[in-house]
C-alpha cells in the first residue's frame, strides 16, 4: 500500500486478502467430521455522522457530478457537504454504515458508482431508497439491509450472505440481514446488469412470487 497520511492512522489488524482469518485461532487440527466453516472476509465499518435520509446529493454533490465524468475524480468528494473529512478515511474493502432511507433523491448513478470506486465493499443501512437500491446492484455494489444502530465507526465487520448475517466482530454482535432478492443476487453475481445482459442476451428472470 502506498504510504499516505491516512494509511498511517492506527487501524485494527484486519485481513483484506482472501486468506483464512481463523488460522491463528484454531490451533487444534480439524477432525474429519467437522464441517469446515466458509472463510469470511473482514471489513471496517465507516459510519456516517448523519445517519438517516442520506440523499444522493449528499453522497456526491451536484457541484461535481454534473461536470466530472471520471469516477476516480468524483469519488474524492463523497459526503463532502455533510462530512468533509469522510472521503479521506475510506479504504478499499470498507463497509459504509447508514440509517434509514439511504440514497433517496436523484436517480444519478454517480452516487453508487462513486461509493464503489471509493473502495466500499458494501453499504449496510436500515433501509434504502428505491432508485439507489436498483442502481447499486446494476453497477455491482452490494447493499445489505439490517439493524445498523449498534455498529460504531471503526468496528470490524463480517458479512455472511449465505446465512443472512452481519457480524460486528468488535462487539460480538450478529444482525439478521434482510434477504437479498434473487434478481439482485443474480445481477451481483454476474458483475452488474450490463454483464448480465451480455451473458444472457437479455434478462434471465421472469418470475412470479
Amino acid at each position, binding site marked *: 500500500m502506498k504510504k499516505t497520511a491516512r494509511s498511517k492512522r492506527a487501524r485494527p489488524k484486519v485481513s483484506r486478502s482472501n486468506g483464512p482469518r481463523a488460522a491463528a485461532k484454531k490451533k487444534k487440527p480439524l477432525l474429519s467430521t467437522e464441517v469446515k466453516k466458509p472463510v469470511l472476509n473482514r471489513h471496517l465499518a465507516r459510519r456516517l455522522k448523519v445517519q438517516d*435520509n442520506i*440523499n444522493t*446529493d*449528499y453522497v456526491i*454533490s*451536484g*457541484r461535481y*457530478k*454534473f*461536470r*466530472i*465524468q471520471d469516477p476516480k475524480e468524483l469519488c474524492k468528494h463523497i459526503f*463532502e*457537504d*455533510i462530512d468533509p473529512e469522510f472521503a479521506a478515511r475510506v479504504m478499499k474493502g470498507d463497509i459504509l454504515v447508514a440509517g*434509514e*432511507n439511504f440514497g*433517496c*433523491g*436523484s*436517480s*444519478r*448513478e*454517480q452516487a*453508487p*458508482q462513486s461509493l464503489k470506486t471509493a473502495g466500499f465493499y458494501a453499504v449496510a443501512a436500515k*433501509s434504502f*431508497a*428505491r*432508485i439507489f437500491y*436498483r*442502481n447499486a446492484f*446494476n*453497477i455491482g455494489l452490494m447493499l445489505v439491509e439490517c439493524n445498523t444502530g449498534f455498529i460504531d465507526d471503526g468496528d470490524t465487520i463480517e458479512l455472511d450472505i449465505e446465512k443472512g448475517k452481519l457480524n460486528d466482530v468488535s462487539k460480538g454482535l450478529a444482525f439478521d440481514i434482510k434477504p437479498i*432478492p434473487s*434478481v439482485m443476487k443474480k445481477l451481483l453475481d454476474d458483475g*452488474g*446488469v*450490463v454483464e448480465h*445482459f*451480455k451473458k444472457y442476451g*437479455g*434478462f434471465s*428472470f*421472469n*418470475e*412470479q*412470487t
Partner: protein
Amino acid sequence: MAQTIAEKILSSHSGRDVRALDIAVCDVDFCFGQDGTSSIVIDSFKKLGVGKVFDKNKFCMVIDHSAPSPNIGVSAIHKKMRSFAKEFDLGLYDIGCGVCHQIVPQHGHVTCGDLVLGADSHTCTYGAINVFSTGVGSTDIAITLASGKNWFKVPETMKVIVKGKLPAGVYSKDIILHIANDIGSNGATYKSVEFYGEAISSLSVDARLTISNMAVEIGAKVGIMEADNKVLKWVAGRSKRPPNPVHADIGARYVAVKEYDISGLSPQIAKPHAVDNVSNVEELIEQRIDQAFLGTCTNGRFEDLEIAAKILKRNKVNPEVKFIVAPASREIFLEASKKGLIDIFIEAGCVVVGPGCGPCVGTHNGVLADGEVAISTANRNFKGRMGNPNSFIYLASPATVAASAIKGSITDPREYKKRLA
C-alpha cells in the same frame, strides 16, 4: 382478480397477469436521459456492444440541467450527447427547449396507459396523465435503449384520497407538501401511489403534474392518477398515439389508504433541509429571504407563471431579493411572452433565464452564497441542492414565492386573495 393501475399497466406490458411483488420483464413505451445522466447512458450502451438502438422513436435526450453550459466539463458532456444523437439518429432537445419533464409529455412522447422510464428521479411526473413512469439510473436506460425492455418489481399500491375544495391562494403544491409532511420522505418507498378525490379532479392537468412530480419525495415509484376528460383532452392535443386509459378495479388491493381534507389548508412550506419538514406559512412569516426562484419541473408551467404574475403585476421585487424565473419550456416561455407575463416579471425586477432546470440543481443561474436563504418552487431543498451547503432552501407554491419576493420575507399569498380569486 381485481388489479391496481400499476398491476394492470405492468401486466399489459409483460404479456402476463402480474401482481404486487412479482418480477416482470416489460416492453417500455418510451425512455430518456438528461444532461446529468446521459453521459453514463452512452457509456453503458456502448459497453453492451449491441451496436444499434431498439427503436429510435422510443428514446430522446434533453439538455436541461445545465443549459447553456456553465463550464468546460458540462460542455464536454453536451458535446458527447450531440454526437451520440447524430451517430444513432436519436431525438435530442438541446439547450433552450426546456426541462425534460415538460418536454416529454408536451411533445406527445407519452400517453395514457404507457410504461415509461427516465434517467431522472422526477420521471414520476407523468403519473398525472395516467402513465406508469418512474426514474431509474443511466444503465437501466441503456438496457432499454438497446432492447426495448426492462425488468420491474410490481409495486404495492397506496391509495391517497384528497377531499374538499382548495381555498383561494392554496394550490396543488400545498397539497403535495401537506401529504409529504404526513407520509414522510420514505413513507411510500417502492410503492405506487394512486391519487383520488374531488380536490384532485378539480385541478387542471398542469396542477396535477405538480403532485405526481413530487411522488418520489415520499419515496414512491409512481404517483398515478386516473385519466378523466381533462387528461384525455390534454393528451389528445399532444400525442399521436391513441390513449389507453387504465382504471383500478373495484376490490384492488391497497397496502394503505390515506385521506386528506384540504378545505382549510394553509399555504405549506418545506423548511431546510428536508421536503417532509413542512409548516403552515403562518409559522414562518418574517423569515428573511435573499433569493426567490420560480420554475422547474414542479412549478414552471404557464399556469404557475400566471399565478406569480398576478401577484407581481404593478409590484416590485424587494431590492434585497434576487428573483429568478425559468419557464419550463420554450413553448411556455413564448406563451408567457405573448400574454405579457414576461413584461410583468421584468418590470417587477425579476431575472428571466432560459428554459431549463435553472438554479434548482445548483450548477448555474443563481448559486447561493454562504448563509443565504432562498424560497423556491422546486421539489427538493436538500443541503447544498442550490450549489452551496451553507445555504438554506424553503419550498413553496408560485404564489407564496412571488408574495415573499415582494416583501423580502416569507409571506402568506392570501394577502393577495383578491388578485388570485
